[in-house]
């Protein structure tokens, strides 16, 4: 041991007396700090995203240092003729090699420490708690270490096996191949995600890890299995290296080390098995989905029928299985004369029991379709009750266009159950996945849930450690369930989705709206709520009819392909974030839209052709005037300043939502704003508000959900002028 320590000290000295090597971790930390210091509005302020961006590029670059150091440390003396006299000393090749590896790893840990220190500092500035910061660093710090560990071992192996300087060239090519090339050209292009374990860092350029709330948690099992394999692989490489060195320099234990190498090889192979099996299961499940998927033209629902009410009790068992009891109330008329009644339920769940009005009935389950046998049931009541009890492990891994994600997942800490995956029985036979064959490859997406009749939902949830959120309103926590975070959700809706994860609730005083988001967005959410609160107060002070509420805003990364448009469920608003899409001005406007006009729609002009009686309307222009007034009245901005502050459209160049109101390109808006400016100048602000209140009371809501049948008020310029003149002349 003392010899190993002396050897280790020598190696440490070699590295730490090299000014170039010493400077690198410091520069690495500074680089990270510069990246994180750029976080500021108007871009997303999600520190997690920016940090991951750094990891996937700059950490990958730092692997070049690991590669270089590994090769150099071996070539420096172990494979150099003028140093081979050291072989005459009574010290084992294993001692030399392991001390080099350990010293290299200690040095590379400096990069981890630099990253950790910088992240901790900036995260603290962004009000992340110590626990949240620790959670983050515990994952990414380990991921860094693993990646340095395997790269170092690989580099040293190259130098041990290949005496020539070509080992450097091979090493750098391996660095290139084992990161970026493997990511883009092999893994993503061919959807060979199981090869991630061979990626030197596993920070792919497009990765599910980028999802802060669920990413690394849903991938946790896979990542740990991968880490176990990588450790075994590293041990194998080290063992083989020692065996090779023992072969080069006479040793009595050479044959023994050959034996150890075989064992290490077998061990590494065995360590791959659990990882391989996980992927086999995933790809098998995906293949099953592909079999039943249809093209977009064939996604009609067969035998759709309304379900009056759902009473769902969902429990997560200690073994990780989700157990559900779903009681459906179906009008008898819908099942009259039928011998079979089909439902769609995700194949992840196995139905254990089916009852009709309390009587057990037969059923069959094939794929995602559960068919109830109605022939044996007694005469149904007017509102018959169908009960299905089912259970299963929820883990729906998926990929599309080189990106992997989960359609559904459930464990104690994480819950992602969108309605579309049929976690509760849906009426009729539905296809859960659509396959777009355009590129010749599987391109599965979840089938949007329509058409579906609205139902009254009561959903009880138990067994989850973290708070569960739903698209329904939350009712209460029952006393007996409190210890287990049991919750009851009630409401009428077309569907219900459930979520739970590493989410934080952000509130500001005097504001009833809560933002539920990832910890990294806390500061951004506070700023957003403060702005929202100010605007809400302003409008509440003069609009006549009450504002519509938003109780909750969910702000989180979506699964699969990101969708910019948010969704409204009752008084809850879901915003999907991406790196450039954040709680910015456009989101303020959407929230205010909801409060003022009940919908989220932003700038949609219907005012192209005034002769078009059927479609023409200046409703959008009038809606925009409400914001204009905020800028002029509440913020006391000039006309131009107000125009510049209204940001609605995406500007790729500035990477933010921009494009002002552009009244110059909209003659109606320009005319209206001019009239308002004149009225304000003349001290007739209250009259302007009266005009706006009039139109609001008449209705300014847009419902564009059905493109074939868009619902919006038809308001002409003449309508505006008539009201305007009437009020102004009063």
């Amino acid at each position, binding site marked *: 041991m003392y010899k190993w320590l002396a*050897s280790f000290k020598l190696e440490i000295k070699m590295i730490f007396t090299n000014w170039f090597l010493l400077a690198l971790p410091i520069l690495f930390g500074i680089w990270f700090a510069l990246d994180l210091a750029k976080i500021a509005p108007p871009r997303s302020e999600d520190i997690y995203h920016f940090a991951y961006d750094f990891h996937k590029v700059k950490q990958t670059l730092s692997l070049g240092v690991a590669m270089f150091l590994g090769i150099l440390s071996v070539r420096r003396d172990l494979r150099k003729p003028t140093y081979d006299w050291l072989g005459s000393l009574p010290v084992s090749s294993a001692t030399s090699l392991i001390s080099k590896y350990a010293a290299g790893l200690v040095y590379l840990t400096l990069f981890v420490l630099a990253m950790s220190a910088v992240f901790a500092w900036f995260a603290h500035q962004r009000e992340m708690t110590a626990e949240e910061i620790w959670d983050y660093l515990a994952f990414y710090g380990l991921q860094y270490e693993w990646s340095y560990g395997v790269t170092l071992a690989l580099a040293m192996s190259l130098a041990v096996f290949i005496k020539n300087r070509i080992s450097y060239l091979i090493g750098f090519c391996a660095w290139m191949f084992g990161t970026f090339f493997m990511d883009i050209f092999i893994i993503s292009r061919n959807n060979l995600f199981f090869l991630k374990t061979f990626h030197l860092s596993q920070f792919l350029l497009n990765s599910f890890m980028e999802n802060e709330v669920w990413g690394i948690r849903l991938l946790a099992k896979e990542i740990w299995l991968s880490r176990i394999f990588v450790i075994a692989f590293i041990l194998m490489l080290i063992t083989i290296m020692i065996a090779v060195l023992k072969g080069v320099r006479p040793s009595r234990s050479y044959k023994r080390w050959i034996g150890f190498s075989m064992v290490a090889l077998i061990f590494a192979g065995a360590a791959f098995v659990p990882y391989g099996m996980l992927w086999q299961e995933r790809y098998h499940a995906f293949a099953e989905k592909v079999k039943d998927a249809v093209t977009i033209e064939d996604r009609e629902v067969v035998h759709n029928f309304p379900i009056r009410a759902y009473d769902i009790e969902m429990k997560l068992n200690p073994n990780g299985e989700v157990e559900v009891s779903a009681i459906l109330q179906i009008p008898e008329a819908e099942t009259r004369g039928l011998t079979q009644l089909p439902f769609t339920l995700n194949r992840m769940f196995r139905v254990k029991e089916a009852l009709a009005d309390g009587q057990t009935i037969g059923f069959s389950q094939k794929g995602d379709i559960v068919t109830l046998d109605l022939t044996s049931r007694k005469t149904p009541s007017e509102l018959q009750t169908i009960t299905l009890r089912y259970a299963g492990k929820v883990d729906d891994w998926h990929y599309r266009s080189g990106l992997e994600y989960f359609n559904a997942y459930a464990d104690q800490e994480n819950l992602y159950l969108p309605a579309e995956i049929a976690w509760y029985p849906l009426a009729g036979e539905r296809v859960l996945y659509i396959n777009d064959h355009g590129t010749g490859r599987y391109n599965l997406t979840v089938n949007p849930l329509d058409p579906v009749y609205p139902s009254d939902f009561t959903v009880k949830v138990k067994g989850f450690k973290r708070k569960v959120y739903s698209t329904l309103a939350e009712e209460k926590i029952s006393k007996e369930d409190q210890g287990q975070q049991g919750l009851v959700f009630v409401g009428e809706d077309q569907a219900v989705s459930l979520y739970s994860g590493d989410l934080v609730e952000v509130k500001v005083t005097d504001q009833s709206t809560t933002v539920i988001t990832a910890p990294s967005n806390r500061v951004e959410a506070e700023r957003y709520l403060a702005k929202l609160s100010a605007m809400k107060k302003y409008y509440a002070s003069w609009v006549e009819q009450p504002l519509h509420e938003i109780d909750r805003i969910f702000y989180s990364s979506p699964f699969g392909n990101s969708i910019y448009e948010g969704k409204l469920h009752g008084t809850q608003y879901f915003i999907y974030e991406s790196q450039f899409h954040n709680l910015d001005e456009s989101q303020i406007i959407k929230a205010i839209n909801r409060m003022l006009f009940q919908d989220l729609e932003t700038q949609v002009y219907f005012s192209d052709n005034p002769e078009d009686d059927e479609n023409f309307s200046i409703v959008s222009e009038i809606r925009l005037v409400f914001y204009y007034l905020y800028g002029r009245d509440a913020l006391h901005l000039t006309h131009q300043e107000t125009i510049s502050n209204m940001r609605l459209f995406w500007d790729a160049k500035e990477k933010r939502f921009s494009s002002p109101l552009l009244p110059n390109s909209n003659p109606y808006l320009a005319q209206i704003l001019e009239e308002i400016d004149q009225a304000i100048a003349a001290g007739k602000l209250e009259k302007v508000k009266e005009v706006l209140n009039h139109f609001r009371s008449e209705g300014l809501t847009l419902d564009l959900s059905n493109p074939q049948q868009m619902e919006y008020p038809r308001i002409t310029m003449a309508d505006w002028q008539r009201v305007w003149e009437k009020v102004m002349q009063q």
Partner: protein
Amino acid sequence: MQMIEIKGLSKRYGRHDWALKEISLTIENGIFGLLGPNGAGKTTLMRILATLLKPTEGSVSMNGRPLSHPEEVRKVIGYLPQHFQIYPHLTGVEFLDYVAVMKGIRDARRRKAEIEERLEQVNLTAKAHKKVRTYSGGMRQRLGIAQALLGNPEILIVDEPTAGLDPEERVRIRNLFSQFSRNRILILSTHIVSDIESSCQKVGVLNKGILKYSGDLQQLRSFAAGKVWEMEIGEDELGHFANLQIVSTRRSENGLICKVISSEPPKLAAREVSPTVEEGYLALIGGVRHV
């Protein structure tokens, strides 16, 4: 009694390239000199004994320890190769400390004392705390000798130890080796025959991988007995004797005084002289030419 027994030792590179062929040799206490021209196999033999190379055939026993147990052999040897490097970032003391630990000297105080003693012996005390990269070639050589001596190895294997040293240092090192080899084996490979003459009791001569001679210096000298001639010639006559083995030339008042190895006197005026060790060696490996 310390002893190295070499039996039938051979080393082959590739299929047909024999660097050493069936060397059998016994080396006892004292300094054993190893002579031979370039490519004779001296370094190969040294490296085998230093457990850096595996022999193709044969066996070696180093003080009762077979070479097939290299880990055991390494505990009792000190080795200084002909070409070597030392970590330039370390100071002399740091380097010797590292080697001392590797040689199994655990006690720090004992290590320190021995390092100081060795540095003193090789006259490097003044530079002990300077980085090795500031050392001249000769200093590095002396440092190499110091590390080989650390731990008082039973067997010291040194290859061209005095190369790069000035005459004073060379004498010093020779004396050091003489002291060291009293109850130990020291194998000294060198081109400098005066090193052999002044310190070795026994000598071995390798040529083209074969052991041409092993024995004492007197016997080596005898290979040139009756074959060493000294003569005075004019400078323009030198070309006439080009086919003979001219051992040395020096200027005289009338021309050049040459020493030649030849079976017959090269010229009438040549007189026979007693051979030196070098001449015996040259006669052995170069063969004796005829006029």
